[in-house]
């Protein structure tokens, strides 16, 4: 049996969901037999494959780079899993949504800056006017809420998806 | 029946409080007279300020938060004084179909005031109404209590210019 191609993507989030994913203990050994991690912040390969069987997304869509990345990922993924509250609801990154963008830039790069005062015009990806959960930008197949989702749940969801099911996840936010 | 005189004195010796007191007396100072009394204050003073709300609450034995809840529920009540002149644009369906939203926008742009607010110089309050019941005269507006039928944007601006120019108020 060939191994399933699994990718993980880190958008705007704290990486806690990735940590939780790594926390699945001995299940990691089971998974290692079944999957090949083809793209991830955790591995060296920085080119997204032609077609991943499963992609796990952590984080909300905050910047133009996030938007570009997730659209590319969606187009090259069979099953897309939104992992954690940031991907599912926008969560902490989306708390900026009540403020206009110029105020946010101003606070970050001018008011509180001591060096290089002023909003950067290059190198930093421009922010979107509103932070959005992944499913408002591309189609999501599986939602796994939690901040972070417990490791056991992540493991179960991945095994379910590999078995060809779309699991009904009943997990709490937060 | 409750007492026949208000348990506390009005916030000031302004004679208009007599009208308010008369309303409360007519209803025996019952809490149920809250809306009627606030109507009285609104009509006598043009708005409901904090003193008025505290006075009415105390006189009618209504909790402060309940009075505030009622005062902010009904659109007829305002907590801030309006401008010297008022222009109301009807946004009822008949007026809407005939373009009253554009007229409102034109007035808002021309006088730099958002609907529901008063200009910085306190000369004009630009208001909207849900339906003034003059659908036969759509699109209609009310300028200082006078209904103006079949408005156009240019006409409305001219009328309001005239209104705020005159020395009164």
């Amino acid at each position, binding site marked *: 049996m060939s191994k399933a191609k699994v990718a993980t993507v880190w958008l705007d989030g704290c990486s806690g969901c990735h940590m939780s994913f790594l926390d699945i203990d001995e299940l990691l050994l089971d998974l290692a037999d079944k999957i090949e991690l083809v793209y991830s912040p955790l591995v060296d390969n920085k080119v997204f494959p032609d077609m991943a069987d499963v992609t796990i997304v952590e984080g909300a869509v905050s910047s133009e780079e996030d938007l570009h990345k997730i659209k590319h990922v969606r187009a090259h993924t069979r099953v897309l899993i939104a992992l954690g509250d940031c991907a599912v609801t926008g969560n902490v990154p989306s708390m900026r949504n009540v*403020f206009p963008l110029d105020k946010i830039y101003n606070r970050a790069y001018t008011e509180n800056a001591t060096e290089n005062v002023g909003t950067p015009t290059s190198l930093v990806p421009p922010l979107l006017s509103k932070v959005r*959960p992944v499913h408002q930008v591309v189609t999501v197949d599986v939602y796994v809420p939690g901040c972070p989702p417990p490791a056991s749940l992540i493991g179960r969801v991945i095994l379910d998806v590999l078995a060809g099911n779309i699991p009904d996840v009943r997990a709490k936010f*937060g | 029946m409750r007492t026949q005189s208000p348990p506390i004195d009005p916030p000031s010796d302004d004679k208009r409080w007599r009208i308010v007191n008369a309303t409360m007396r007519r209803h025996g100072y019952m809490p149920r007279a809250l809306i009627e009394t606030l109507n009285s204050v609104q009509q006598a003073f043009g708005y409901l300020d904090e003193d008025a709300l505290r006075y009415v609450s105390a006189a009618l034995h209504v909790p402060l*938060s*309940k009075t*505030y809840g009622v005062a902010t*529920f009904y659109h007829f009540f305002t907590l801030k004084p309006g401008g010297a002149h008022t222009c109301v644009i009807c946004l009822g369906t008949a007026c809407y179909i005939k373009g009253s939203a554009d007229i409102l926008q034109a007035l808002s742009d021309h006088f730099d005031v958002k609907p529901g607010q008063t200009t910085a110089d306190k000369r004009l309050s630009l208001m909207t109404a849900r339906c003034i019941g003059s659908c036969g005269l759509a699109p209609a507006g009310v300028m200082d209590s006078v209904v103006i039928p079949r408005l156009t944007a240019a006409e409305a601006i001219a009328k309001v210019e005239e209104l705020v120019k005159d020395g009164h108020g």
Partner: protein
Amino acid sequence: MAKTFKIDGMDVSAADDQTILQVARERGIFIPTLCFLEGLSFVGACRLCIVEIEGNPTPVAACATYPQEGMEVYTNTERLQGYRRLILEMLFAEGNHVCAVCVVNGHCELQWLAEKLGMTYNTLDYLNRPKQVDASHYRFAVDHNRCVLCTRCVRVCDEIEGAHIWDVMGRGIDCKVITELNQPWGESVNCTSCGKCINVCPTGALFKKSKAVAEMEKDTHFLRYFSTIRAGGD
């Protein structure tokens, strides 16, 4: 006179003053609630407890409806499940429920309901309406971002404490619970600082200051105590 009717096919009976919800709870049938709290008057506002009645196209609120003889009530149809999830989605979209408290202690009824009713994500757009936090009271604080406008605080303050410092102002989406004349809570002269509002709040909107989040326990035992007194006193 007692009535006999059916809930989810089960034969049940109700006393005259029992609502559908009370009978269901008596028989261990789960109907989700949010604005309802045993011991306070009911308002039928959150609509989570809606149930279907055979022959009636419009569901009714179980907390506010008295059963009739022979009625057939259904509490958990697919249609109701869909409606309830959408109600929760509306609440999550209306306020800001990104809440550090809920992560830890699990005492948030809204969070619990979302899990229980299987709301895993929100199909609606978030409204992103900024709301205030009032921490002017020396012991308590209110975060309007978490408020679901269930009015339990308004009712407990009026019906049990008798202070009526809480009420609702405005209308529609601009509704907000207020203390006195929409003034800082700390300036309220009539607040007895009894803390009952804190204990009945289903979310983290009303909370005690200087408590570690994990300690934020809700205690509504006093409501049962008061209901007992009332039942005896009437």
